[in-house]
């Protein structure tokens, strides 16, 4: 089978990226993000908190925008982050329509940063599909963990590079 290979980060951007000063590397390389999504029955909305490493986020935002982006210094860092999340995190309702996220905020915690976004979803999460490609365009060993709570149910999803939309289904744990 022949597949087209999309190199998402094109060479001119990479060169821009390479000129940047060194990022603070973690003690030893490992790459995981964590997403907690919860359906708010009263607001009829999906509330999402995402924990990522700050330097990874700064790296991808810098590469995408061709300039050094710092979460605590760049004035439009919120906007750039939301634009990235809009591409990297996709939620489809059971009819297959993509939802649009709005920005709630971010807060830092040690070397990580929590990102908060939400979307109205009166139709609920039942039968919805999620795809989380955060940093797949930056790191080939990135793993994105997702925990979802909705209607008294819990769903755990794991995304690795190359994986597509996954249906949100209650996770049954084996004893």
């Amino acid at each position: 089978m022949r597949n087209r290979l999309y190199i998402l980060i094109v060479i001119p951007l990479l060169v821009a990226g390479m000129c940047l000063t060194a990022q603070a590397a973690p003690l030893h390389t490992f790459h995981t993000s964590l997403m907690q999504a919860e359906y708010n029955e009263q607001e009829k909305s999906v509330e999402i908190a995402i924990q990522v490493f700050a330097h990874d986020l700064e790296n991808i935002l810098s590469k995408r925008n061709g300039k050094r982006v710092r979460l605590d210094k760049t004035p439009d860092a919120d906007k750039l982050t939301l634009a990235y999340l809009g591409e990297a995190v996709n939620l489809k309702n059971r009819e297959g329509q993509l939802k649009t996220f709005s920005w709630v905020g971010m807060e830092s915690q040690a070397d990580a940063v929590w990102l908060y976004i939400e979307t109205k979803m009166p139709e609920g999460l039942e039968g919805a599909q999620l795809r989380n490609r955060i940093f797949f365009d930056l790191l080939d060993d990135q793993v994105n963990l997702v925990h979802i709570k909705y209607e008294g149910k819990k769903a755990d999803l794991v995304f690795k590079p190359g994986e597509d939309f996954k249906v949100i289904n209650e996770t049954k744990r084996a004893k």
Partner: protein
Amino acid sequence: MLNRLYLLLVIAFLCSPAVFAQSKTNQSDKFKQLGELLPTPNDYRAASGAPGPRYWQQRADYSIDVELDDANQRIIGKETVTYRNLSPDTLTYLWLQLDQNIWAKDSDTYKTQTAPSFQEIPFRTVENLVKRNFDGGYKITAVRDARNAALPYTVVKTMMRIDLRAPLAPGEAVVFSVDWNYNINDQRKIGGRTGYEFFKTDGNYIYEIAQWFPRMAAYNDVSGWQHKQFLGSGEFTLEFGNYRVRITAPDDHIVASTGVLQNPLEVLTRAQRDRLEQAKTAKEPILVVTPEEARANESSKPRGKKTWIFHADNVRDFAFASSRKFIWDAQLHDVNGNRVMAMSFYPKEGNPLWGQYSTHAIMHTLNVYSRYTFTYPYPVAISVNGPVGGMEYPMICFNGPRPEPDGTYSAGTKHGLISVVIHEVGHNFFPMIVNSDERDWTWMDEGLNTFLQYLSEQEWEENYPSRRGEPRNITEYMASENQVPIMTQSDSVLQFGNNAYGKPATALNILRETVLGRELFDYAFKEYARRWRFKRPMPADFFRTMEDASGVDLDWFWRGWFYTTDHTDISIERVRLYTTDTRNPEIEREAARQEKAARPETLSEQRNKPLPKRIDQFPSLRDFYNTYDEFKVTARQREEFQRYLETLTEEERALLTNGINFYVVELKNVGGLVMPVILLIEYADGTNEEMRIPAEIWRYDNFNVSKVIATNKEIKSIALDPHLETADVDLENNFFPRRPVKSKFQIFKEQKERNPMQELEQKPLPPAANQP
């Protein structure tokens, strides 16, 4: 729910042994002793977890001449190794580690990389896949015996076997030499724990040189030769020995190295030597090479070479760094009487952070770690800034964080630097001195070290933002799928950081705070460090020592936290109230009357009430039962009660009458991990009580237990794990009555006005994002 209960029955029940869970259906035994899982103790490793009476380890002494070729980024070396066979075995060949060979073009590290996703692919990955033109790996040019005659050798990927001319008997030593060279990797491009960084702006390099000479593989009583191939994750274990190393570098370079400099007169200027002398009595770090001098050095050209001679005793490895860009600061630090020269080497790009924090962080680490283990035994401790993000070697470590080019830095970068210096300097204790085997067990040094890193960070400043250590920080990982037990060989560990660093560090913190208490834990942990200082422990030695020295059975803890992927999730399923039946008719009949009166009228009763009744129309229909009060106490009932009281002792009578409430709290182990149960009980009268129940409450039934709380007060609420000390992943089921627990999102949204990041920057709220 209120239940009545016969007191005498309760007493009988509590005394009865017939409360065991049925063993035929409940297969799980989370308290089973680890005996079958651990290796059988022997003369080398005792059942107590201490080294046995015939414990042995090999020894390797090195004399090395190495040249750093700055023009071609190359290492050219020659070593003479004296290998002492202190084992009871006769050896016919020796194995050496050739770690540089992971960059050989045909290395298994490349071959065993699994395919990346081709849906989306980082550029660096494509570059690594197609542009493998770096000519890495060792070029071994000679292997000779003590008489300079060639020895046969065979390279097996990252290992090399040297065939001895004659078998090496126990107690004997053999001397041989190896000549080699290799090209240094560009760390910024292909990564690694060693390598160079090129600075375009001034044309200079920083070299961090490690895993750079053919090193004797460990030979031990557990694995024989530890020659498991180096694939990149499982670091290494080596043998202790003395090193005599001559490092030749361009004459304008500053060299930082494991060991003590032997020829300062030849390589340092008079000013540098004077400043080093000042550092011996200084209260703050002294600049040996100032930023101005380092900046001037950047544009210098070497006029020749200089050879720096370092000696290091009783170390298991040797590393160094070299550059003309280095600023150098130093301060002599007294650790329990051991005088240690704490030093940092960094380029101007590291300032202002490095000058302010690095050497202080070194000294802080030596203080705290020495308190929990043993006094730092080496004469120097060095932190170097270069391309490597964070990596440890004896007496020297490489740390990456730098401020922005404009000299500003975020709080995250600052704490990132302090944390990584603490962590990598801390590695001197584990595994450089307590010589555990990271090729197999990453957690034995990373987990223990991350635990001590957490303790050190918390002594740096109040509310230091430690990433790992607090139980609440590990809950998401603990609940996640896609994980393996801590007891997994290094190269197969999934979610490396959480598995080998975060989880064991948190487990030890919980063991210290919640299971053993600080006093018992600290005693046992220190004993482990003392027993295995300059020796090679295995996992069982740690598990056994902690139990042996603390006097507490911890097998359930090791089993749950280290051998499974279970997590803590205990739920308060139900609370039932039992009160005593006093048998006193005056009390009990009245209670029954109130209970009946308290029952709500049914809808039909309400509607039937106003209907005309036949007995009202014909009063002759009335008899005894129409006026009988079923709750009225009769003389006979009183008599019966008196007779009953006479059969009781005085103590029994008191129990009967003082109105104790028995609350039965039903607990369910949802997550699978057996853990202590901590209950905070709030009474209606406003008082509180904390119950701390050991994990052994689960020993008969690992999944469902109940606990009786006997009190003459009324309970208003119960909270499980009120201090967030057990890493319970689901707090919603921790309360009676149930309380909604706010999500991370909701907490943030509520206090959003108080977000300092936004307060400072006054960022406008962006519009909704566009979808792809």
